[in-house]
């Protein structure tokens, strides 16, 4: 099996303090069942402030919108409604949820693929609409006219940014947005239908961690706004979407060691680290590693607000100024839509151990009262170690390592071979007992409900909001019962 390889999660004080109180966690699961998701509304409010601080450092104004799709929690959305944040809704239900949680429509942007109901509610309420394509703009204009709605405020979502000059940046093909080369057609419509739509600005979202690709896109957006101004329009927003990232791991060296050993395992130079030699996207072709490691870069020296800071400090590819200066000097506002980064450290997922059995190769299968989809860390390629939360009187799960660490596979309780909560061997300080809890840290971003399903008529996981009062005592509330008045 080889020496244990750890990927310890990064735990900031709010999450760490929760984990230091196993009695509280056991009480919650006892009452509400396994699996159980915990969200921490106060953490999200602090994350908004951290992003705002970056804006302030660069003297920029503009909206910070939470990408709701990262987590369906009512508590998080209602807490955010009580901050200055905006919200990015990607479905009619997300939009209704935001409006019903206290977001005034002008704080909401409607993004992504839209069906007629979504477009109607966005236009009726007066949310800002991210226009994906000319056809959608035409639909919106028709709707506003037919229903006699107020002028719809729009951001044009652009894509396929091309670099000029000798260096051609190849970008991954995207399903979304209008190629920037065809923006003239959209501007024609906006100009012609000025009584139906008001152009607030342009937007992009690139699925890349690369700063240069984003710098190119942002500069292209500034040029498009320039063209819009030349046509007599008065846009002032560049919406750069999300993708600021989260650092899940405490220790970069563990991440580097792990990924190196994984490559070695795929090449057969060490014992496998994974169930049936799963390669996480890598494969062995005649001693050479091929394929791409399909893992989220879980340790990131620069993530979240720090990534935004780095992006804004990146020089524009042709105009030379930093992107922050470019926006500021053109008098533009910066809008962002962080999802994962805004709920960083704001969630914890718990599941109860129901069975432990040994396999032939010395590892153990630990079955949890959950399915892999309830905490979709693996589906999102996020590898972090789960934490053992022992029952009362069983000591501290993490420090309690009298013997050597034990390698286990965590499996779900679907009647399906592939229902693996971890496809890799994870090391726990001791073999868990039935009744212990396993905790997954930092799951609020995409890892709670994004992939959850109801196969086998299983009820979904419950969700609760937790926090501390001023006197340090804990409160908790069912997610749907939480309001910012909850103490």
């Amino acid at each position, binding site marked *: 099996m080889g020496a244990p390889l750890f990927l310890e999660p990064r735990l900031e004080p709010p999450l760490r303090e929760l984990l230091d109180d196993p009695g509280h966690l056991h009480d919650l699961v006892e009452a509400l069942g396994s699996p159980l998701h915990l969200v921490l509304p106060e953490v999200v409010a602090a994350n908004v402030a951290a992003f705002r601080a970056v804006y302030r450092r660069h003297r920029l104004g503009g909206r910070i919108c939470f990408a709701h799709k990262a987590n369906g929690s009512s508590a998080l959305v209602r807490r955010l409604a009580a901050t200055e944040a905006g919200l990015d809704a990607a479905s009619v239900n997300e939009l209704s949820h935001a409006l019903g949680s206290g977001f005034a429509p002008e704080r909401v942007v409607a993004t992504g693929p839209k069906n007629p109901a979504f477009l109607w509610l966005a236009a009726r309420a007066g949310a800002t609409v991210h226009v994906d394509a000319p056809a959608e703009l035409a639909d919106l204009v028709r709707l506003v006219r037919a229903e006699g709605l107020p002028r719809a405020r729009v951001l044009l979502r652009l894509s396929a940014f091309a670099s000029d000059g000798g260096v051609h940046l190849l970008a991954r093909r995207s399903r979304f947005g209008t190629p920037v080369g065809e923006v003239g057609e959209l501007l024609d419509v906006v100009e012609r239908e000025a009584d139906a739509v008001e152009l607030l600005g342009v937007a992009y979202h690139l699925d890349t*961690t690369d700063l240069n690709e984003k710098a190119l896109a942002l500069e292209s957006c500034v040029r498009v706004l*320039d063209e819009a101004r030349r046509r007599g329009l008065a846009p002032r927003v560049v919406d750069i979407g999300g993708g600021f990232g989260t650092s899940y791991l405490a220790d970069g060296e563990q991440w580097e060691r792990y990924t190196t050993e994984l490559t070695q395992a795929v090449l057969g130079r060490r014992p496998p680290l994974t169930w049936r030699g799963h390669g996480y996207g890598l494969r062995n072709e005649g001693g050479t590693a*091929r394929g791409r490691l399909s893992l989220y870069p879980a340790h990131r020296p620069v993530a979240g607000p720090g990534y935004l800071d780095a992006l804004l400090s990146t020089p524009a590819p042709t105009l030379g100024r930093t992107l922050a200066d470019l926006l500021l000097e053109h008098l533009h506002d910066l809008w962002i839509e962080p999802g994962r980064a805004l709920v960083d450290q704001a969630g914890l997922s718990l599941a109860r151990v129901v069975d432990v059995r040994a396999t032939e190769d010395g590892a153990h299968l630990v079955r949890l009262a959950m399915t892999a989809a309830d905490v979709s860390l693996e589906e999102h390629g996020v590898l972090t170690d789960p934490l053992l939360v022992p029952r009362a009187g069983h000591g501290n799960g993490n420090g309690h390592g009298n013997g050597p660490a034990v390698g286990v596979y965590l499996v779900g309780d679907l009647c399906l071979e592939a229902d693996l909560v971890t496809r890799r061997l994870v090391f726990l300080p001791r073999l868990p007992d039935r009744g212990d809890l396993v905790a997954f840290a930092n799951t609020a971003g995409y890892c709670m409900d994004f992939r959850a399903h109801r196969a086998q008529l299983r009820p979904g996981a419950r969700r609760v909001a937790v926090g501390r009062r001023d006197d340090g005592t804990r409160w908790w509330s069912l997610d749907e019962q939480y309001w910012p008045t909850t103490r």
Partner: protein
Amino acid sequence: MRYDDITEAIGNTPLVRIDPAVHGLRTVDLYAKLEMLNPFGSVKDRAAWNMLRPGLDAAVAERAEVVELSSGNTAKALAALAGLHGLTFRSVTNRMRVPELRELLLLLGARIEELPGRSECLDPTDTDDPLTQFHRALAEDDSAHLHTDQYFNPRNTEAHATGTGPEIVKDLGCRAPDWFVACVGTAGSSSGVARVLREHDPNVGVLGLVAAKSDFIPGIRTIDEVNEVGLFDPATYDAIEAVTADEAIDGMVELNRRCGLLAGPTSGAAYRGAVRHLRALDGTRPERTTAVFIACDRVESYLGYVRRRRPELLGRAPHRNSPATVTEAELAAVHAVDVEAARRWIEEERPLVIDLRGSHAYAALHIEGSLNLVDELFEQQVHGGLPFSRRQPVLLVCPVGEKSARFAALLTRMGHPDVRSLAGGVVAWRDAGAPLVRE
């Protein structure tokens, strides 16, 4: 020496002994194989020419484009060689991280394509490594091309097995060194040289150096990235060790300042890695140890790399007339005027309005009658003195009134009697509804 064309000047590079007083190893004779003296500037010249040669006639006949996945020296050599034979060259890169090399390639007429970065959300349809993506893209490409395929082409290794390796043996008096040290990029030079040296003496030790995982050293792969290289075989190396970018730069500076070798960071990494490894062996054998490392390319292209990582090595004292030297007290004394006062002042006294923003932003919208002097240029101008008459009142304008205040303080210190700063900048001007024009 007279040649018919420059390709004849590839190879036969000198082997130069490093002064023991510099490396400090008592029983080791350490030599640098100066591959940086190849005509296009690096060890890659040999491989590039050897890989290109067999397909050259056919490529010229069908006017094929030479293509390679390279962000550095191989691209440089191929660009020069392609041009020499009337062919075009396209470099596809995972990321061109050395701006000087990028510009040099453009100067040589190369086309550069950069592959996309890693995706932020995990996309199961995005499964291939850059090398595989590139191979597939080439297979789909109908236009004529000659792909030199440096990571898999055995002629890469062969160039060193027939050139670099035998030259080392000959220059050491028909002996193989006890240790050979090379950084691993395509693994071509290390595998090719190692093969020849071991044929000569099976006991030769081969040290392969890779970059520390989170570091970037030009031309060297990390311990994981080497596994994607077809030519890489771990059995070639007696030891594989990691070098950090800091070690690479330290080694480079020592070669530059103490040895008269104007070699770059990759050479610095090889030198540092060699000394570190050999120090442990120093004095453990009765006889002297001979070791050779590859000085792969020259330092000039890496000034930006050094500036980013170790600015103190290029440090200069700040200029006296610089906005960075403005004190808090000087800033507090600046005459800042709000939008209303500024408009009145412009109306009544017609001060020179200087807009310090970038030229593109200025062109998009500005205060009518203002003059655009981009802050970077303006800063250079004031280094030498006041760039306008003291009798000319000046209103400085920037986005939010911070840079303009700083420059106003500086100009005041330099003796200008009436320079003011627009409080809140163009943003405040816009927000107050004051007119901005586009001309």
